């Protein structure tokens, strides 16, 4: 039957594959193979000079690892059981023994040479040592490493990948001091993939207060949440005990406890260590997988605001703007047009009045009969000029109004008022009767004679009678002279009064004509103005409709997109949620693997 932990681990691997995390898959597969392996690989780590190699030597009671006063170990050594002592230096693509790694080169060396130090450390990645020891036969593998901090001195510290390839970590720390921050940081890192951690306090033979140190270290580990067992040991005492075969001293050295612990771990690897490790590593990996998923879900929430929704609200806003605009431009148009028509009428009135004043001036002085023929074209010309100026003004104003209204429309295109609006459609003077020549009677010769005679009659009689008193005949020189004088006078008076009358007639005629012209032309202007108003209204109404239609269209599109986005997002969100849920279940299952109450791990928070 497949053990439960293996099931969980396989599911975790599948989850990693589903999230395209090939790196994790590779790592987990190696871990899986390693957990199934009956051997127990113990990584012996620590800062340089803590006595790691000496601890291994003492544990095995054999000088397999080089021991010196200053950073001696330069390459990791893998020590396992062999029927006869043998050793080899290994180069390969990776420092860590990897099942897939090809092109690994092994150089067999005498075991004594290793014990006196590995030369050419830069070339070799690791040493492999086999010795016949009862302790190792059951499958215990010890890995001696360079110091955690040796990278600075030797150019190659401990490769972090080793941690992934071990079942248990044995940290060696000098009992003369407390655990350093570097050591604690390393342990915190290691427990994430390899929860079985033992801290060996070395050199308790020369440490004065190692019991207190051990106690303080336990507290620090507990504070840091690292589930490690602290075992104080002394390699010196162990080696001496082995030499003198002193059981009591051996017990004092603390090694029996350490060895027993390792052997217990080895024996119960499949029931206790493997599930425990699987649980931790599954927890760690699931957490790693959750992080990007959570980040993506978080990112989804923000995405909608920036996409189709903003377009939709923009369209809505434009529509509101347009609605406000349409009442405004209609009012504005009618106001402008009524202003225009009154202005135009006033202008025309003003112009005709000015013409009339000129006419009056002319006819106050000139005899219409004499000037009429020159006067008529002049009047026509002036009227046409006035009409043209007036009409031109109308066109300008209309254009100005059109532009002003158009400016309030967003995206207005120029020259939208058709030119034909301003054609009056008939000749300017069609509706006006021709200026007729006023009936001015000519002062004929007969009339002049008659008038002269009538005037001279009174003078002759008057002066004839007066002079007759003086004895003169009625017709005499005096009376004849007076008659001529009177006749001349009445002739002149008559001529003047006739002129006045002619002038009055001419003025009245011209006035009538101008009035007619005014009436007819202002009617035309009003027509044009109304036409302009109608055309502008139609035009802008159509424009507004177009605009509204296009805005509505874009709003519809935006809404569709938003709806699609929303459903897409929901789908994505549900997917992520489902994945997270799966991972959470996996996490729960991993947590449920806690079968060994003796080695409890602090549960990794989901």
């Amino acid at each position, binding site marked *: 039957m497949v053990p439960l932990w293996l099931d969980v681990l396989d599911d975790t691997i599948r989850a990693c594959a589903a999230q395209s995390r090939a790196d994790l898959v590779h790592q987990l597969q190696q871990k899986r193979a390693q957990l199934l392996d009956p051997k127990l690989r113990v990584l012996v780590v620590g*800062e*340089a*000079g803590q*006595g790691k190699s*000496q601890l291994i030597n003492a544990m095995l009671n054999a000088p397999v690892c080089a021991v*010196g*006063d*200053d*950073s001696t170990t330069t390459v990791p050594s893998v020590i396992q059981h062999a029927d006869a002592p043998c050793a080899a230096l290994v180069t390969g693509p990776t420092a860590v023994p990897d099942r897939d790694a090809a092109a690994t080169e092994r150089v067999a060396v005498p075991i004594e040479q290793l014990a006196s130090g590995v030369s050419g450390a830069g070339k070799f990645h690791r040493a492999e040592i086999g010795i016949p020891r009862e302790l190792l036969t059951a499958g215990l593998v010890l890995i001696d490493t360079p*110091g*955690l*901090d*040796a990278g*600075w*001195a030797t150019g190659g510290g401990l490769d972090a990948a080793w941690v992934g390839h071990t079942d248990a970590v044995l940290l060696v720390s*000098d009992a*003369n*001091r*407390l655990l*350093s*921050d*570097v050591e*604690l940081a390393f342990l915190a890192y290691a427990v994430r993939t390899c929860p079985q951690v033992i801290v060996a306090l070395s*050199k*308790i*033979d*020369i*440490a*004065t207060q*190692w019991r207190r140190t051990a106690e303080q270290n336990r507290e*620090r580990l507990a504070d840091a949440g690292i589930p490690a067992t602290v075992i104080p040991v*002394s*390699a*010196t*005492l162990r080696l*001496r005990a082995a030499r003198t075969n002193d059981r009591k*001293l051996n017990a*004092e050295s603390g090694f029996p406890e350490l060895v027993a612990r390792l052997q217990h771990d080895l024996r119960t690897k499949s029931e206790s260590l493997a599930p425990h490790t699987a649980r931790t590593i599954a927890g760690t990996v699931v957490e790693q997988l959750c992080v990007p998923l959570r980040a993506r879900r978080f990112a989804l929430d923000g995405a909608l605001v920036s996409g189709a929704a903003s377009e939709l609200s923009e369209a809505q806003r434009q529509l509101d703007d347009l609605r406000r605009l349409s009442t405004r431009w209609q009012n504005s148009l009618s106001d402008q047009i009524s202003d225009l028509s009154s202005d135009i009428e006033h202008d025309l009135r003003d112009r005709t009045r000015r013409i009339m004043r000129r006419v009056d001036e002319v006819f106050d002085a000139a005899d219409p009969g004499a000037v009429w023929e020159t006067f008529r074209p002049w009047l026509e010309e002036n009227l046409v000029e006035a009409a043209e100026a007036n009409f031109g003004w109308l066109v300008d104003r209309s254009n100005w109004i059109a532009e002003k209204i158009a400016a309030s429309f967003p995206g207005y295109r120029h020259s939208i008022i058709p030119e034909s609006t301003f054609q009056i459609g008939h000749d300017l003077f069609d509706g006006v009767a021709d200026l007729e020549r006023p009936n001015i009677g000519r002062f004929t010769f007969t009339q002049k004679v008659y008038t002269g005679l009538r005037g001279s009659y009174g003078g002759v009689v008057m002066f004839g009678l007066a002079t007759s008193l003086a004895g003169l005949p009625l017709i005499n020189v005096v009376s004849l002279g007076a008659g001529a004088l009177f006749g001349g006078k009445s002739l002149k008076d008559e001529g003047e009064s006739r002129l006045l009358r002619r002038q009055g007639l001419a003025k009245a005629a011209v006035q009538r004509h101008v009035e007619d012209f005014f009436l007819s032309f202002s009617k035309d202007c009003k027509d044009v103005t109304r036409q302009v108003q109608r055309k502008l209204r139609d035009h802008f109404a159509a424009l507004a409709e177009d605009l509204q239609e296009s805005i509505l269209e874009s709003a519809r599109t935006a809404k569709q997109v938003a709806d699609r986005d929303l459903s897409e997002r929901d789908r994505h969100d549900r997917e992520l949620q489902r994945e997270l849920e799966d991972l959470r279940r996996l996490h729960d299952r991993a947590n449920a693997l806690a079968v060994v109450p003796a080695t409890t791990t602090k549960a990794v928070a989901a």
Partner: protein
Amino acid sequence: MSGTRLEDQVWGLLNESLTLYGDSPRASRWLQHHLQRFEEPLRIAITGPPQAGKSTLVNAIVGEGVAPVEVDGAADAFVWYQDGAQPRAALHSAHESVHDVPVSRLDRWLHLDPPPGTPEDLNEIVVDWPTRTLRHTILIDTPAVGASNTATPAGQSIMDRVAREADAVLYLARRAPGTELNALRLAPETPVSRFAPVNTILVLSRADEVGGGRVDALLAAKQIARRHRRDVRMRALCQNVIAVAGLMAEAGRTMREPQYAALAPLAAIERSQLDELLLSTDRFLGASDTVATLAVRQDLLNRLGIVGVRLATTLIRQGCGDLGALASQLMRRSGLAELRESIRQLFVERRGLLKARSALLALEFVLGAEPRPGSDRLAAELERTVAGAHEFRELRLMAALRSGRTRLPSALETEAQRLIGMEGTDVSTRLAADEQATGAQLWTLGTQALDRWLEHAENPLFSHAQQGAARTVVRSCEGMLAELAG
């Protein structure tokens, strides 16, 4: 030599800037403080990671049990030890100070009874202690750097304070290459500190624990120290690496009759039995009371460590018949003498230079922190002083030769190092003359050296850097001749 010239220049600069910053109370307080400090004894800070043996080394140097100082609320305080007419202490917090606190010796360390109302957050404790060894130096015992269990989380701030307060530093570490040196590697760097390089001696403390506490542990430790001294990477960090067994040094200087009386009968026990007894601390403490009571054994262990007890009994067995002989043997083996010699050579003899360096750093800080019209000129003056001072040039050449940035043919390199005062700054040491050499002999040696190095400075086969090095040596020779003539 032109040493006085540099000091005069620095003194002048400080006074000038004091005039410039007369209206800024903060700056002028700071500058006045440094003017005062210029005249004070050399300040040597003893710092390092937790449990590296800082207080033990203070005791070993002072020769009496004065460290650590036991006072409440002072986990973070720098403890200053200076010479004084009578034992007393002053406590300083950021805002207030308490003076004339009585000091009492409690076993191996000092106990202070701060009067009620003393602030909790003390940051400085100044202990006056009548002793000859503190006549020319002030020792500063600092809190541990880079320890997460002390009140200041960042070790860096302690190193900052050390760089500000101390003229020279003894940095303690158990082992040379390792994380314990991080704080030293990350020490703050400014233009002045680059021009006038390291003022640090790295002390490999607890040398007695090397190799699991073998009897020859101290020899092994000294060899390690020698190897690191030659290491280029170490040279960038410190001027010297010295292994010291702090406990033994302290024991050698502070051991009294009762301890000797306790050790003597131990040494008299038969060899194999004694080995058995001293196998581990547990065995030593757990033994029967036949030769010494538990309290006595505990005291011995606290004072000497198990390795120290082993060494002491071996020494007694080998013929150190009395307290004096044993103490001097312990001292000799502990490496303390070497450390003191190094302190004398590198720190005390270069007191003026180190003081000038501290003052220039302080001035640089003020000019950087409060720029104002006129400070540009002072900054330029400061730069000229730093770049032009021959002492700094010698120091730079020393650093360059040590780190291997500049190389000379080996015989020349040795001579150059001697002439620029790497082995000692007095004229006869520089010229490798006898102690009794007359002025005329020294003059001859000096002129000969000058002539030789003038030639080297013109040697067309030398690179630019090598010629520069030779010119610096020439300048040193001229300085010596000037001193002899004057």
